[in-house]
């Protein structure tokens, strides 16, 4: 017998059915929405592309930390090893200090470019006396706990210097002495008002004759604001020692504050030397193989600026190109180097004089600063620019206007230029 359903049962069944339908609809809606989330995510990923989501390789010539083109695989491996050492920040336990300026090579050179005023280095001396007994030739104002940072003694000659860019130094190294000396004119024999002379420097004993810029006797200096350093090895060893407080086989004794009021043995817990010869060599090779950034596109205005650059004789010191000689790294050898410098000393007048001799350079002389890399310099300085040895110039125009001495005539010629020519010249220089 079929049981007859009463109206209450039908209502309950209908209610249950309605709830079931609602639940199914809700589940369907929720799953549809979730499917939509997944679909939208997939579409987003596909539309953006994997390369943007996974970073992209910067074009060649757009950074300061890229290797030279033409390096072989072994050299590229050395470059990687050196980059790691260059960026290595030392802890106190690893030997930082006891007195120092910064914690790594990379901490002074922004993106391997120039430094900023907050990490400027202070060099001092009394005449040609480096006053080692008073903490010379460089102030290390920072110190690990227990040590005492150095303070500037009274009555010394002071020179504040921004850390220079480190790219392209291998190419500078590869320019032969004879090429540099060809451009010398110490007595201004051609009477053009521009002299230019090499800074003859005796390298330290730890730089062997096999090393470029090494060996006995004076050699042509080419590194540093006054071309006071002849070799990358010396530059590397002294930067470790003076700037980071790291001892090496070449400089195994800690740099300490001779005027410290506290003397606590064992401040620096690391054994000396704190880096080995391999690390020093790695950093040196890394710097050697750093490529200069590529110059910008030569527009019509820049071509006009280039012509003005030549016409008002900026290029008398800022030589657009130098030729390298033989070098063990093939990529550095026998090529034109667009560094816009003769790497010689010039008298730049009282305004820029630090009145502190360095090697055979006097207090008014400075090495012609290379102009390469200016195109992207601001990108690594938070949009700012710090030019000249102490960063006092915040633009190329300011830097030109600070020139004096041998460059006074060129500065005056720049001032006399029509506005369009000045702008074209500045555009050209800032595109190098």
């Amino acid at each position, binding site marked *: 017998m079929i049981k007859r359903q009463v109206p209450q049962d039908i209502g309950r069944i209908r209610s249950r059915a309605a709830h079931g339908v609602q639940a199914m609809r809700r589940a369907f809606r929720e799953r549809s929405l979730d499917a*939509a989330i*997944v679909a939208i995510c997939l579409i987003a990923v596909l539309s*953006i592309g994997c390369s*943007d*989501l996974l970073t992209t390789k*910067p074009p060649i010539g757009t950074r300061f930390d890229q290797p030279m083109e033409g390096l072989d695989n072994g050299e590229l491996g050395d470059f990687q090893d050196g980059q790691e050492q260059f960026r290595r920040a030392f802890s106190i336990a690893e030997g930082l200090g006891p007195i120092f300026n910064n914690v790594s090579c990379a901490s002074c050179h922004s993106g391997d470019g120039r430094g900023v005023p907050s990490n400027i280095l202070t060099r001092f001396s009394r005449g040609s006396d480096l006053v080692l007994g008073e903490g010379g030739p460089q102030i290390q104002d920072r*110190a690990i*706990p227990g040590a*005492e940072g150095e303070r500037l003694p009274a009555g010394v000659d002071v020179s504040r210097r921004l850390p220079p860019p480190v790219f392209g130094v291998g190419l500078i190294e590869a320019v032969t002495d004879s090429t540099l000396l060809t451009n010398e004119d110490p007595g201004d024999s051609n009477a053009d008002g521009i002299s230019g002379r090499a800074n003859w420097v005796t390298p330290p004993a730890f730089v062997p004759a096999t090393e470029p810029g090494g060996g006995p006797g004076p050699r042509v200096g080419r590194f540093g604001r006054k071309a006071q350093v002849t070799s990358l090895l010396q530059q590397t060893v002294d930067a470790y020692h003076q700037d980071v407080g790291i001892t090496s086989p070449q400089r195994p004794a800690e740099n300490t504050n001779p005027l410290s009021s506290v003397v*606590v043995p064992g401040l620096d817990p690391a054994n000396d030397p704190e880096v080995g010869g391999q690390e020093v060599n790695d950093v040196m090779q890394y710097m050697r193989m750093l490529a200069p950034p590529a110059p910008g596109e030569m527009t019509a205005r820049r071509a006009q600026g280039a012509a003005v650059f030549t016409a008002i004789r900026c290029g008398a010191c800022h030589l657009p190109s130098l030729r390298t000689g033989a070098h063990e790294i093939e990529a550095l050898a026998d090529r034109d180097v667009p560094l816009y410098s003769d790497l010689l000393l010039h008298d730049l007048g009282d305004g820029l004089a630090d009145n502190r001799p360095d090697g055979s350079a006097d207090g008014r002389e400075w090495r012609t600063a290379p102009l390469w890399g200016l195109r992207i310099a601001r990108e690594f300085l938070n949009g700012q620019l710090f030019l000249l040895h102490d960063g006092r110039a915040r633009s190329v125009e300011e830097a030109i206007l600070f020139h004096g001495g041998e460059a006074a005539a060129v500065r005056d010629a720049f001032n006399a230029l029509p506005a369009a020519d000045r702008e074209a010249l500045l555009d050209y220089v800032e595109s190098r």
Partner: protein
Amino acid sequence: MTGRAGLLKAIPRALVPLMVAAILGASPNWAAAATTRATPVADPFDPDRGGVAHGSEQGILWGGHGEIRLADDRVLGASDPEWFSIGRVNGFAGARLSAKWRLSGEGTWDRATDDFVLERAELTYRWKRSLQAHGGIFPAPLGRTNLRHDAPLNPLAEHSLVATQLIGVPNAMLGAGIRGVTRGAKPMSYEVDLVTGLSDGLLYESPGGTRLPFGRSNYGDNNGLPSIAARVAFHPRAGTEWGLAGQTGIYNETKIGGVTVDGNRWVHLLVADGVTRWFGLDLAAEAGVAFIDIPPGLIGLYAEDQWGASLEASRTLWDPLFGNWKSSALRVALRGDAVDLDRGLLGDSRHRVMASLNVHHRPYAIARFGWYYELRRDRFDNETPHAGVTFTAASYF
């Protein structure tokens, strides 16, 4: 720069549709399936850990968890594939010695901090749920992540930057204290400890600036003066917890070779954290700030202030993922986090977004298909973009 351009283009375009879709698609009714991560730590100090033990016999339990990682990490477009690595390995054991006494131990190696930490060697006396005394080595109560970070519970492959770079998860210390959880509909949990605190490793061992995780020292103190660590957390409703924690103490040793070389120097760390559920999303956030008294000779290079924060959202898409596999679930997770390792500088910071699609075998295991994009800024504020795709799998064993 390339990195900035990449970020501006890639991240907003990737995140906006994902976030909008996740929020619009969320439903209050769709909250039933969550991982244990969403469960508030009502009693985070229970020696039974809330995790999954492999074995249990006669009052003794044991187990562990591990994580493997396969990744293609990239920096400025240069690929650095890591085809297999261990992300995390952990082992733990606990013993119920009596009705009131418990003994527990735990050790972890974590890839993010690249360090092995004895997380727990702890003796607990439990008067009642609201009052327990404990001593030994135990995780400092510095936020929820440090108290509970079993690999299979994490919806993303890495802990947040605030956890790894500021708090130093896993951060365990030698000490003693009390803790407990109050009863009621809205319980409150607390912990107050005297611990060894951070050591001068945060300066001496850390390269390139102040790094608190390098000051973790869970075997002893280097200055004989304890630090105070405490946390209080409120649980206004199921699935929600708001916590506030802090630690303060001296970190340095003032003598070298018997000669006093420096005065006492303090480090203060404050952490706020929370988890809740909102429109079908499981949300978790953690923020921390640190103040470090730096010796005068290091000021300017070593940070005096640091901060970090993270916000994480996750949601179940399918539960179960397969009809006959009832414990399976498919979830998505997204996290944005940042840490500023020196507030005195424009740079020395890290910002990151991570996303992950996870297959769960609850509560034992998880497989994650992840992506991250991170901008690291050096002390000059130069950006270097890092990114990668990852596959990680974590399981209790």
